[in-house]
């Protein structure tokens, strides 16, 4: 996994600012932008894959059983999956502040 952008010093940059590692933005977690999180109801899910194909953040991936689960590290909580789910198996639940 690549280093986060704040950990990279200017001295480590390649000449011409060429980025040599493909897909290194995975180090930047967009999950903390979220205020609502998608929750899957597996009883209603028909594994059609629409949530996966319509996700603009590439957060969905298939688990071992064939269900599509969103990755909380990258899901921005836009709600496209919940809206487009043909069986209403995905609901949006508000995120709560962690108790300190």
């Amino acid at each position, binding site marked *: 996994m690549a280093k986060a952008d704040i950990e990279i010093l200017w001295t480590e940059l390649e000449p011409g600012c060429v*980025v040599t590692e493909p897909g290194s933005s995975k*180090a*930047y977690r967009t999950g903390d932008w979220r205020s609502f999180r998608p929750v899957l109801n597996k009883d209603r899910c028909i594994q059609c894959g629409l949530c996966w194909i319509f996700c*603009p953040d590439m957060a969905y991936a298939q688990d071992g059983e064939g269900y599509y689960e969103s990755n909380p590290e990258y899901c921005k909580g836009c709600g496209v999956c919940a809206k487009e789910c043909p069986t209403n198996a995905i609901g949006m639940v508000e995120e709560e502040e962690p108790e300190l």
Partner: protein
Amino acid sequence: MSNVNVFAVKTLTQKEYFSSGHRACQGCGETLAVRLVHKALGRDVVVASATGCMEIVSSPLPLTSWEMPWIHVAFENAAAVATGVEAGLKALMRKGKIPNKKIHVVGMAGDGGTADIGLQALSGALERGHDFIYVCYDNEAYMNTGIQRSSSTPYCAATTTSPAGSVKPGQTTWKKNMPAIAAAHNIPYVATACPSYPMDLVEKVKKAAETPGPAYVHILSVCPTGWGMPGEDIIKFGRLAVETGAFPLYEIENGRYRITVDVPELLPIETYLKPQRRFRHITPEMTEIIAERVAKEWELLKRRVEFSALD
């Protein structure tokens, strides 16, 4: 909505060529379009990208979201750089310096980089007949710099440089018909697509890649920030744009027109316009003018389909 079309999505590759962690807004339609385009093209791709939203969100300096060679160039010369890459690869293969295989070269830009600033570079590239694909991600304004009007902004849409008020209805000109300009170069393949119809989009991009010679794909990318709608509605509005006839999906293969997502009866245009913030000021008279124009263009497109099937 053609369910058969949509439910085949599981047949697409699981591999992502555009990574998570990009900084696009919640529910960005353009990111979705980029993701689907590169799902269709696969691994052997070189991309030249003009300035725009996609450059900003995908490549903040030490990081990149791209899983393939990608170069950011100035606003006006994405097509010129793509053709240069294509010519360079051809020369290297001829001299045996790199293995001889098909590498797709893609030029990508937003509607500003295509219809306004990059038009002459694109026109030159299409005219010279390079074997490359040009993809225009059309979100109907300069969204990256804060929603300024472009020549691709539709009539009556309010943007920061075409505000709606008591005198002006917002944008006073009609949307530039970019696919028709590309088709006028007599190139082998021109298509319009929308990520709300993912299989249709993937099929068109694959066809564009297989076509020898230049291909132009114009993709409507719904922008929740600029259009003023919740991020969850991007797929719905893409579908409405097609079903009301505001953005018909068709392809032109060697001069032959074909409507790929047929709409037997167009929905009233208000269903698409009214819920958007950029159109919230429109009066019934303005709606009437837009509806008339949309119906006329839809009729014209159908005539072109009939006419081009004759020869």
